[in-house]
């Protein structure tokens, strides 16, 4: 069975074909969920971001003009939707809410598989405060400049630079701790 191309799926989704919409979602949900996991503090937030992001993707399908890959365009929409999601919940510059569960313990990272660095990166990013995490994601992984980050987040360029610097320092610290733990486990 020949799988439909991205353009065919795009055209079908623009017509409102439910099967094409689902196929488009199935094609990109895993890589986009990885992106959302890096912007979110946990899996639930990432799923919320992914849901709102795909709603935005389907609403803005006519905005894709065939310039570049469809996956790259979907990724940009998902990232912007994740930033909007964080802004709406005032995630920038606020402390994490304490869990209100009585006995549930905080998340524990699962054991890492060999060559599973991407999971390690995701877990480390999730441990950063939202402001650090967002700026580091946008600068290091998405390739935005400080001017663009300032425009996206509505902050000063200086704030973006300082957040990035602090994020790098914290990430180094977390990474060194994690390597020590992994060495001890071995």
């Amino acid at each position, binding site marked *: 069975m020949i799988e439909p191309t991205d353009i065919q799926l795009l055209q079908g989704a623009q017509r409102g074909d439910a099967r094409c919409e689902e196929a488009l979602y199935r094609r990109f*949900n895993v890589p986009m969920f990885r992106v959302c996991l890096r912007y979110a503090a946990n899996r639930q937030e990432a*799923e919320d971001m*992914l849901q709102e992001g795909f709603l935005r993707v389907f609403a803005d399908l006519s905005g894709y003009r065939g310039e570049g890959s469809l996956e790259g365009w979907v990724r940009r929409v998902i990232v912007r939707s994740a930033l909007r999601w964080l802004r709406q919940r005032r995630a920038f510059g606020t402390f994490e809410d304490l869990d*209100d569960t009585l006995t549930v313990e905080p998340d*524990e990272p699962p054991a890492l598989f060999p060559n599973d660095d991407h*999971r390690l990166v995701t877990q480390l990013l999730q441990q950063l405060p939202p402001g650090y995490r967002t700026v580091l994601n946008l600068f290091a992984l998405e390739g935005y400049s400080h001017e663009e980050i300032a425009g996206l987040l509505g902050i000063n360029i200086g704030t973006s630079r300082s957040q990035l610097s602090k994020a790098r320092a914290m990430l180094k610290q977390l990474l060194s701790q994690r390597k020590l733990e992994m060495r001890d486990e071995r």
Partner: protein
Amino acid sequence: MRNELDQWLRQHADPGTDQPAPDGWDTPSGTVWAGVRAGLDQRRKRRRRFLFWLFFLAGLAGTGLWLGDSLTPAAKHLAPPMAVPERPAAAPNPKQPAVQAEQLSRLKATGAALPPAGRLLPAAADSKIKNPSTAATRVQNQIASRQPDPASQNTGPKSSLQPLQAEAAASADPIVPAPLPGLAPENTVLTDGPRPASAGLHAPALQTLPGHWPPLAGPAPASPPLPPSGNAPIRPLPQPNRLYVAATAGLRFTTRSLQGPGNAKPKGRESGAWVREVGLCAGWQVQPHWAIETGLQRTAIRLQAERVLNFRYRTNTEQFDNQNFAYRNSDEEKLETSFGQVDLRMDLSREPNRPIDDQAAVALSLRTDEQVNYWSIPLLLRRVQHSGRWQWSLSAGIGLHLEAGYQVQVQAARANRPGIRNIQVRLQGRANGLSPLFWDARLGAGLQYRLSPRASIALAPEFRYGLSSIYRRGPFRSLTRSGGITAGLAWQF
């Protein structure tokens, strides 16, 4: 500037494949697509609703314009009397020859001597003269008081009538009535040539007959009916119509007040919401300014509330392993809603990387959105005032609401983390506190514009206050208060 750490992140952040991890940590749960699907469906539903209302309003406006345009000519004759535009001076008066012929025929019938030359004047020369018979008398008296003085004829006209007298005196022919429009004058040979021009206000077609103009004694005989003219017949304004019907649609916002000594009021915050209302109404005008109305309306009461619930649950390891979520029953298996208790079940999912505990509790925020549909039968007394095409009214009365359906939707979220997912709420049954019927009092106004003698559009705001509780039982009474506005198309029989 990107440093080594940034490059390490970029190299290791993406596994380089779209294949999900074997344990599924980077695979979203199925609820994400379910949420996307629901959002897409909801968006399409909103679009369809928007298009429906757009076409409905466009159709309503088009129908109104069409009715207004197509029925305006007839409506002009039924409109209240307006200032008559001045007739152009050159336009012929089609009734004038008939008046003159009437004068001649009346003189002949009475056997009176015909007036001398120059004595017969066009009866309708004075445009203010409405009654031809009295006009003839008045003209005769006027002329009798002004005996022609040959010596004074050269001094110029004494009145506006004298030019016509002089003109008539210049002719020695007997009086021949001016030709009627469409009729050849007496002793006229019809030819194929052009028809003679109809007599105008100063038409020289009048000819005088020798003789004396006697005063008319007594009332003039009944004048024959006027010949048909080119204008449409003037019909009187119709009597106020008795029966009228209307189709209405509008929006209504309903909230409620709780009365009573009991403290068992629903927890949390509550607010009303807008609902649509459609209906048919029929009215009977019992007096020129009073009408009784009734009808059938499809309306609803919608209440939205947010409540916090302490949700306790116990994990089930076996089910968690199989279905990736843990099913739990709340200790509070009843949810207190705005309209009573509803059986409640909730499923709270868990993160795969979170250890499973035996007992946990979490504060959940429950948002309930309830709507009770009703069939409503109003009984109103309406006071109506007319002003041209406009009509305004005040109405008062009561309404009976019969319950015709119940819908409830609940969304659950973590109280301190609204973004948390996978809390599924299931409700069974319906709220048990609903009353099958209740009454309310109504006070409203109306503004109506007549598009045609029978069709009109109306705009009617109305306020309703509940007279009986929407609860069947309970320690307190729940009385509704609602305000809304409806638009409609009315038809009079």
